[in-house]
């Protein structure tokens, strides 16, 4: 068959609107009379609700509706039905996780709605929470749900176990059995567009319209209708752009029913947009898992039995986690030629954010476990991992233990292609230190019977009177280019050009039912329906034309949008003419997957119409000094059946692989008391552009007989093999098998140090306070923390969240001093504001006013000081970017410019100022998440970092607070002997930067003073350097080191070394300075001296990697200073 539209590179449908900023997303919808909704969330991870009083909120001016669980009666989200239907739209009786929706308000503005939420008073009785699945299964564990929702046993939403084939017989034949255990935490889809909904209820018509960021209008309509008590026919989901999905928006999200109910109550349209924090705290995440795997292997390498036991953290409510149980089962039994298998799985409730759906449905992590294990098997067999995989690869015609019948299968070709593209043979042999390559495979169902409804699609295509072809589908293009590829399929079927076709998505009134854009179904299932609709419409057109032209339908051909009579070539009609002749027409196409519904007891059955295969190879480099893993290159080969649009498929591969890199190397939600402490893009860091490796792609086309034009699913499975390929490459590079994710630099560096047996001399006694600190820390778990947490925090003085300070803008320095000297107002100076504005939202400030000094002339300028040509004066409100680009700075203080280039992001550097960097607030994720901690709540409160996740905290100098000083400029300017010039009522004074701090985030600048400038003395014959390590691009330092060396001939006459981010104050390495003064900074001497910088340290549990890190950075900085001489 020769294809004209399918298989071709076509532009993304609607791309011009997107690059122009004209595409309209839910966030952008503004309806007349629209109100704004806010949600009151639970401050407890597990508690009984005794009462809710909304009267004060209702009485607030501008409030139009307040809803609680009463408004929903006893209705619950349906989700997968039966025992899985466990969640009311608003908490009734109990809250089961921190952040759960308790009430919601609609008001004239968001600020009023939030204020009203704060006025709702809820009486709780706290219950014991449980956070770890193992604990939730313990005898003492509290029961999170009653047995009707936990049929597997206490806190067990599911307990599953099954054998596939003669397991015992298979194991008995084994040459050897290997066993392993892998664990990973919770990752999050993190769509750039947060969840949001605009609901508009028309009481007169009894109709509810919803614009919502979703992948699946079908399910939203169903869920919202039943949640608010309407008939499905009364609810219409409207077409809108969707800013990313990745599974996270594939089923009901909580704001949808809430916006709908608020609109019904308020009789006005209501918009709810979650902020990024809410998105992390309450949005549906992926699931944490523990995977135990045991494989029985024959002498010749055959996999006689694969035995996998999985424990899945469900969080507080069940969404689609039962399909995670299935997804791990599928990979256990079907990836490679497995002869027999055993699979068991517990889905366990905990008092954490409810898990949802994320690309791959757990497959990437399960495959990571299986494929890490495959490498171990290959090594035990002394076989090359790639060759071994090819020998075990699934083949067309195979039937797996789960009874999947493999039809088209390009796994062998994919493995060969991935190996070839990465340069496997050569790179596997070459033993470049700390470099490695690894490979992994994947399998993924295309068109599986995943839903109770089966898996069907309907598409309607119309030819309008204007000659336009419009495809109507209830699926949603969340950015995958599905509307483009559906247009290509329709165009091919009709014989028109892709540009002639417009795809209208999501509208449940215009388009017939379709289960939506999830579970890898659009290309295959909706694609097939669209193909059929196209054929049906074409048949209608032909028959209408044949009547008009008085000929047989077989006498007419339609090509490139023109119908022509085959035997009378001048009889032609373009689309407009066809529409005129044949009248407006439309046709539907229906497709239901031919897969079999799996056996409910075992999961057996040929579940999907066909299966997707692929292989990925990774090449990585590991930095021995910092533990950073860099993915240098990926090679991806995927059996896509047919690439309907190669540009679209490649885009999915680039994107899926980068998300996989995020999972492998950096993403993980961190909790304390069930509360996420890293609920921001800063702390939950998705990969930025610097993490994007080169990716070579091979699209393997196996032309699936059931696929539309041969195509299989493409987008979702691109992520499946990425973690595994990287982990295997890391093993090749380091000899270390990481069994926990992510492989972040802190973990990698610790593992490398342990492997090399390094033990730096910490000599903690060298710091006076350490004995006391160590004693208190020893008593923390059993005595200090429990007492302060339960009793002390009752006396916490926490800032009032709702308070907004006013902003004052002084015109000159005198006015400024006046603004600051009112003793009764709490003021803070703001210049760039990039830290304070965020801090205000974090609820860590209690302020009456902000005084904006950003445009004060006295605080500007970079020049030599008036009467001192040996001192450079930098105005305090100069932005980092301007400083870095200044000629004098470049000439005299290049280390300052290079330090700045490592701070935050370009946009932040253009606004943030030099004094702001020095004075920024302390950075501790407990403090920043407004935990009632010592620094936020006062002396009766505990430090959460002692027992919590303290990877970012101080290793040195901590007392009651362990927050490190986050400023990069503090150590740098200290090393340069710079001073802050401070002005106030009583005149000017100068404070050396090394003495500026009382504590992290707390300076000696008085409340009625302001830093006017930073002065840096010129020092002849000096070289300087700065080294910084952040866990991710754009991140704050985990450790930084600034060095300035003054040289006399070839040896150092004075040396200044300061470290940042490892202690509350900039840390001076006095001993190393003394040891190296007078030397030439030879490498041996440097190594020895650098090791002394950690003397007096008293690290916590998770920040021990900072010890070798600090030593290594110190070495690097010293050697750089030497090189520059």
């Amino acid at each position, binding site marked *: 068959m020769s294809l004209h539209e399918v298989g071709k590179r076509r532009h993304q449908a609607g791309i011009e609107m997107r690059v122009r900023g004209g595409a309209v997303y839910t966030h*952008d919808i503004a309806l007349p009379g629209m109100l704004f909704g806010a949600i009151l969330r639970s401050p407890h991870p597990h508690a009984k609700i005794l009462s809710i009083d909304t009267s004060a909120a209702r009485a607030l001016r501008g409030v139009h509706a307040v809803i609680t669980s009463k408004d929903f009666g006893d209705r619950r989200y349906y989700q997968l039905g039966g025992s899985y239907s466990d969640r009311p739209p608003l908490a009734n009786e109990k809250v089961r996780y921190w952040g759960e929706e308790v009430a919601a308000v609609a008001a004239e503005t968001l600020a009023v709605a939030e204020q009203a939420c704060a006025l709702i008073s809820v009486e709780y009785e706290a219950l014991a929470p449980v956070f770890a699945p193992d604990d939730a299964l313990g005898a003492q564990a509290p029961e999170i749900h009653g047995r009707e929702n936990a049929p597997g046993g206490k806190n067990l939403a599911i307990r599953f176990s099954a054998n596939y084939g003669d397991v015992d017989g298979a194991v008995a034949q084994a040459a050897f059995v290997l066993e392993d255990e892998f664990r990973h935490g919770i990752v999050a889809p993190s769509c*750039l567009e947060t969840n949001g909904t605009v609901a508009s209820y028309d009481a007169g018509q009894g109709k509810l319209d919803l614009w919502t960021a979703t992948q699946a209008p079908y399910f939203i309509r169903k869920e919202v209708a039943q949640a608010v008590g309407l008939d499905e026919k009364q609810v219409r989901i409207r077409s809108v752009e969707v800013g990313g999905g990745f599974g996270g928006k594939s089923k009901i999200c909580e704001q949808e029913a809430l916006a709908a109910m608020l609109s019904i109550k308020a009789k006005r349209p209501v918009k709810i947009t979650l902020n990024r924090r809410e998105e992390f705290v309450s949005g549906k995440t992926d699931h944490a898992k523990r995977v135990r795997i045991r494989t029985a292997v024959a002498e010749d390498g055959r996999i006689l039995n694969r035995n996998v036991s999985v424990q899945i953290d469900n969080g507080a409510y069940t969404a689609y986690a039962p399909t995670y149980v299935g997804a791990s089962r599928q990979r256990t039994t079907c990836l490679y030629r497995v002869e027999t298998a055993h699979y068991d799985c517990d889905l366990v409730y905990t008092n954490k954010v409810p898990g949802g759906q994320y690309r791959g449905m757990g497959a990437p992590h399960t495959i990571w476990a299986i494929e890490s294990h495959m490498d171990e098997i290959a090594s035990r067999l002394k076989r090359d991992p790639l060759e071994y995989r090819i020998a075990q690869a699934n083949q067309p015609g195979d039937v797996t233990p789960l009874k999947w019948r493999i039809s088209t299968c390009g796994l062998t070709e994919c493995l060969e292609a991935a190996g070839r593209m990465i340069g496997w043979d050569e790179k596997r042999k070459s033993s470049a230190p700390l470099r490695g390559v690894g490979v992994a495979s994947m399998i993924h169902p295309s068109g599986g019977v995943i839903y109770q409804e089966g898996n069907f699609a309907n598409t309607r295509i119309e030819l309008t009177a204007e000659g336009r072809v419009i495809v109507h589908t209830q699926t949603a293009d969340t950015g995958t280019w599905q509307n483009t590829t559906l247009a290509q399929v329709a165009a091919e079927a009709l014989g028109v050009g892709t540009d002639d076709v417009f795809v209208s998505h999501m509208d449940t009134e215009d388009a017939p039912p379709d289960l939506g854009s999830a579970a890898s179904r659009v290309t295959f299932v909706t694609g097939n329906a669209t193909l059929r609709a196209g054929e049906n419409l074409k048949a209608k057109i032909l028959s209408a034309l044949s009547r008009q032209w008085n000929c047989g339908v077989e006498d007419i051909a339609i090509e490139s949008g023109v119908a022509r009579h085959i035997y009378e070539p001048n009889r032609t009609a373009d689309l407009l003419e066809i529409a005129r002749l044949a009248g407006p027409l439309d046709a539907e196409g229906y497709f239901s997957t031919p897969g079999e519904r799996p056996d409910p007891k075992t999961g057996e059955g040929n579940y999907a119409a066909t299966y997707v295969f692929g292989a990925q190879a990774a090449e990585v480099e590991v930095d021995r000094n910092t533990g950073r893993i860099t993915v240098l290159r990926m090679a991806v080969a995927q059996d896509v059946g047919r690439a309907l649009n190669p540009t679209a498929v490649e885009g999915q591969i680039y994107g899926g692989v980068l998300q996989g890199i995020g999972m492998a190397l950096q993403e993980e939600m961190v909790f304390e008391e069930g509360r996420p402490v890293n609920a921001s893009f800063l702390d939950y860091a998705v990969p930025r552009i610097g993490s994007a490796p080169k*990716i070579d792609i091979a699209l393997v086309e196996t032309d699936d007989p059931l696929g539309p034009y041969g195509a299989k699913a493409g987008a979702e499975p691109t992520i499946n093999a990425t973690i595994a390929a990287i982990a295997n490459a890391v093993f090749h590079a380091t000899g270390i098998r990481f069994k926990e994710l992510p492989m972040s630099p802190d973990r990698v560096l610790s593992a490398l140090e342990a492997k090399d047996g390094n033990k730096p001399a910490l000599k903690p006694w060298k710091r006076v306070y350490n004995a006391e600190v160590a004693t208190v820390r020893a008593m923390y778990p059993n005595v200090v923390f429990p007492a302060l947490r339960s009793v002390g925090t009752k006396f916490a003085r926490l800032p009032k969240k709702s308070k907004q300070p006013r902003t004052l803008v002084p015109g000159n320095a005198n006015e400024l001093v006046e603004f600051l000297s009112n003793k009764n107002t709490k003021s803070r100076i703001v210049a760039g504001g990039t830290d304070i504005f965020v801090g205000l939202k974090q609820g860590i400030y209690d302020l009456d006013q902000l005084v904006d000094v950003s445009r004060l002339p006295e605080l500007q300028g970079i020049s030599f000081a008036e009467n001192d040509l040996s001192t450079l004066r930098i105005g305090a409100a100069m932005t980092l970017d301007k400083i870095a680009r200044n000629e004098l700075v470049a000439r005299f203080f290049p280390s300052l410019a290079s330090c700045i280039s490592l701070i935050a992001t370009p946009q932040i550097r253009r606004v943030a100022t030099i004094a702001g960097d020095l004075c920024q607030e302390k950075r501790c994720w407990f403090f920043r998440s407004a935990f009632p901690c010592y620094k936020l709540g006062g002396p009766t409160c505990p430090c959460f970092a002692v027992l919590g996740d303290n990877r970012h905290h101080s290793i040195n100098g901590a007392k009651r607070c362990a927050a490190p000083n986050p400023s990069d400029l503090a150590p740098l300017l200290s090393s340069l002997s710079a001073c802050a010039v401070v002005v106030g009522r009583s005149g000017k004074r100068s404070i050396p930067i090394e003495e500026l701090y009382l504590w992290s985030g707390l300076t000696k600048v008085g409340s009625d003073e302001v830093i006017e400038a930073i002065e840096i003395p010129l020092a002849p014959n000096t070289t300087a350097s700065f080294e910084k390590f952040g866990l991710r691009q754009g991140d704050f330092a985990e450790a930084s080191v600034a060095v300035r060396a003054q040289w006399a001939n070839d040896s150092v006459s004075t040396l200044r070394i300061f470290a940042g981010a490892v202690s509350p104050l900039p840390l001076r390495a006095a001993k190393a300075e003394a040891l190296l003064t007078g030397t030439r900074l030879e490498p041996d001497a440097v190594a020895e001296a650098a090791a002394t910088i950690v003397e007096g340290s008293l690290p916590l549990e998770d920040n021990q990697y900072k010890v070798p890190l600090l030593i290594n950075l110190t070495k690097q900085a010293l050697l750089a200073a030497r090189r520059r001489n």
Partner: protein
Amino acid sequence: MRIDFRINGIDRSLQLSGDEMLVNVIRERLGLRGTKVGCGNGECGACTVHVDGEAVCSCLYPAHRVAGRSVTTIEGLAPENALSPVQAAFVRHGAVQCGFCTGGMIMSASALLAQNAKPSEAEISHALAGNICRCTGYRQIIDAVLDASGQGNADSERP
């Protein structure tokens, strides 16, 4: 307070409250909704606009500071019915998936090219480090920016 400023070539005068952020003025008061909010905390870059030609995050930029300055949003980057070179290159390379990051990404890339006509791949990576894209994996974006600066390689050019 009242401020005068210029946005997308049009002079405006607006009454502001002191704590209003620029993104709010742009989106809610002027209805220019191509500027997006992905985080509201300066972390994602979806809200990037130009103030006097410099790319900044409008979600952390107090509106009163644009007094007397000139603001450009994604809508003002090219005349109607035309695309700027960066916009056109994004189209050619398929550098867009969901499109939510796209406006901010293009604003950052355009500011870069105004300062540095032929950036290297490393310079592009440095300049776009403040813009998160969750969909594309950035490869097609890098290709598009290289191409927009006349360093395109025909091989990597998509449809």
